[in-house]
């Protein structure tokens, strides 16, 4: 019964999203839309581990950048895009697994988790920025320091390096990719693994006492989030046709968190909508010079923490539920991470 309603709501979202993606090119250029989708996927990765696993990662940009760099470096060396594409997902996932294992087996509390993920991002950023010299080479690929790596093989039809997937085709590729990722994540969350992940978010000690190994579960979830972020990095590299250390920057990490907060934690659609809306807003603001757009983004973040702590999508859900009390709302609207719980764990610091 639960599975059936879960399936129905997932299908509804997928169908609505597919229709929107088909209609959208009439309004916004596909080139812009493509990057919005990529950002949406990036937000989805944090939305999964933060909103459902209760793991606040300040360095999701590390996996995003790592995916992009992995793709670019291996694409230059291999000259065909299929293997690099897989590596672009696998390497960040593996890295996230190792990092996660280190963090969760050390039982670090939230604040320290935030600090360490932030620091790892900074290490990447500093290192990549300092690799301008010719001695920094992996195979045939020069890391290029601040200028990044341009001119790698972009996505092609598997087995045929000559036929590129680009422009409108690439847009459809990304649409399919995000729909598949969404469906897989929904499936994951409906599975026992996902349900226990949510249980861990709600009360870690209790789950542990019931005999589940919390550490490995959090590590695996973290790794899956890293893999999705890596995929979006790979897609971004193909879209921009260059990768730069800016992908590892603090501003990038901040933006991912802003998208999740504004869109709504504890939902999957929320972060995606938040990312697409804010990224588009940033794009529109970039075309005017009256107000600095960083200032507006900052204002949006601060105001939404103060006045909309649950994010747009859950708040809208509540509003709708209030307006139409008879209809049963989608289950996911009720899943809201207990941010209070995180904070009380932060109090351990007092010790």
């Amino acid at each position: 019964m639960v599975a059936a309603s879960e399936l129905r709501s997932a299908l509804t979202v997928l169908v609505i999203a597919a229709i929107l993606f088909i209609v959208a090119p009439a309004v916004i250029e596909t080139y812009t839309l493509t990057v919005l989708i990529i950002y949406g996927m990036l937000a989805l990765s944090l939305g999964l581990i933060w909103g459902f696993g209760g793991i606040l990662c300040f360095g999701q940009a590390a996996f995003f950048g790592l995916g992009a760099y992995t793709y670019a470096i291996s694409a230059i060396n291999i000259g065909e895009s299929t293997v690099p594409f897989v590596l672009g997902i696998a390497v960040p996932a593996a890295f996230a697994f190792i990092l996660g294992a280190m963090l969760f087996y050390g039982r670090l509390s939230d604040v320290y988790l935030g600090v360490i993920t932030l620091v790892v991002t900074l290490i990447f950023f500093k290192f990549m920025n300092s690799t301008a010299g010719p001695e920094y080479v992996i195979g045939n690929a020069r890391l290029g320091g601040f200028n990044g790596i341009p001119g790698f093989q972009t996505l092609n039809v598997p087995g045929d390096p000559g036929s590129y997937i680009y422009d409108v085709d690439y847009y459809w590729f990304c649409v399919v990719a995000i729909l598949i990722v969404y469906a897989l994540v929904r499936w994951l969350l409906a599975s026992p693994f996902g349900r226990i992940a949510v249980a861990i978010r709600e009360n870690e000690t209790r789950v542990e006492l019931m005999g589940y190994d919390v550490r490995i579960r959090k590590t695996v979830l973290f790794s899956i989030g890293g893999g999705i972020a890596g995929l979006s990095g790979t897609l971004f590299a193909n879209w921009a046709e260059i990768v730069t250390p800016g992908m590892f920057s603090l501003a990038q990490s901040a933006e991912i968190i802003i998208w999740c907060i504004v869109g709504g934690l504890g939902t999957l659609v929320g972060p995606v909508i938040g990312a697409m809306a804010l990224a588009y807003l940033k794009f529109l603001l970039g075309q005017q010079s009256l107000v600095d757009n960083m200032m507006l983004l900052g204002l949006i973040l601060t105001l939404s923490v103060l006045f909309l702590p649950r994010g747009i999508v859950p708040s809208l859900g509540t509003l709708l539920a209030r307006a139409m009390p008879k209809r049963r709302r989608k289950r996911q609207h009720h899943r809201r991470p207990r941010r209070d719980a995180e904070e009380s764990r932060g109090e351990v610091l007092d010790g």
Partner: protein
Amino acid sequence: MDLAGVIAIEMVYSVAMLVLISAGLAVVFGMMRVINLAHGEFMMMGGYATIVSVHAGINIYIAMLIVAPLVVGIIGLIVERLVIRYLYGRLIDTMLATWGLSLFFIGAATMIFGNTTTGISPPISGFALGDFQVNGYNLFIVLVAAVILIAMFAALSLTRFGLIARGTMQRPDMASALGYDPDRIYMLTFFAGSALSGLAGGILAPLVGLVPTTGATYIAKAFITVISGGASVIAGLASAATLFGLISQSFTFLFSPVVGEVALLVAAVVLLRLLPQGITGRFFRGGM
């Protein structure tokens, strides 16, 4: 011998730098459990306050030591009243809200001052130590950092306000029952923390070219130092700054500045893995 002297000065200087850039954050975090991610921008504003007032003809020492802390302290006060006070006890939310503020201030500074580098020259000239040239201003920074540590200790342990503040941080309800308004104490503590950030920004202004995004270069280091220090404000700050300062400066001498920075970050990750409560969670417990 001269080389050893220079290295010693550089080591002490890098420790002092960490103390200076982390002091404001340490007060706010250590006393109030609020992580102010706009700390770097508070320093940036302190820098601009100094430069603007120097250009307006004010003596550079007055600008650095008085104008900058006052201006930033007042900005901090406004921020506390408008944003932070609604978020006490919600650690993650304060981090996010202040991150938003940090972006806001960067944007605002970009609009006002433009995305260009401004600067003033250091008021103290260098001197020769044997064959080496030593920057005299570095010694001034060491002095200021030492004064800050001593002043913080004195203010917290010797004055009446320090006593009340410490009491309020431990048991706000009890302090309130004794007739001290916690709201007011928090406000004043945040003001003091912001003023320290402003002071740091003002003192560093002659050293670095100032751009609106300058703050980002400090926040990570300050954040790491304070968190690794752990629960005690002064002991934590001093021990973490000493450890990280020595590590990063040693690696800078042996390899390059970039390796030094990376070594600092790696050291922080390893340290937190070994001592999840920070240095003072294990050592110097119960100190200040």
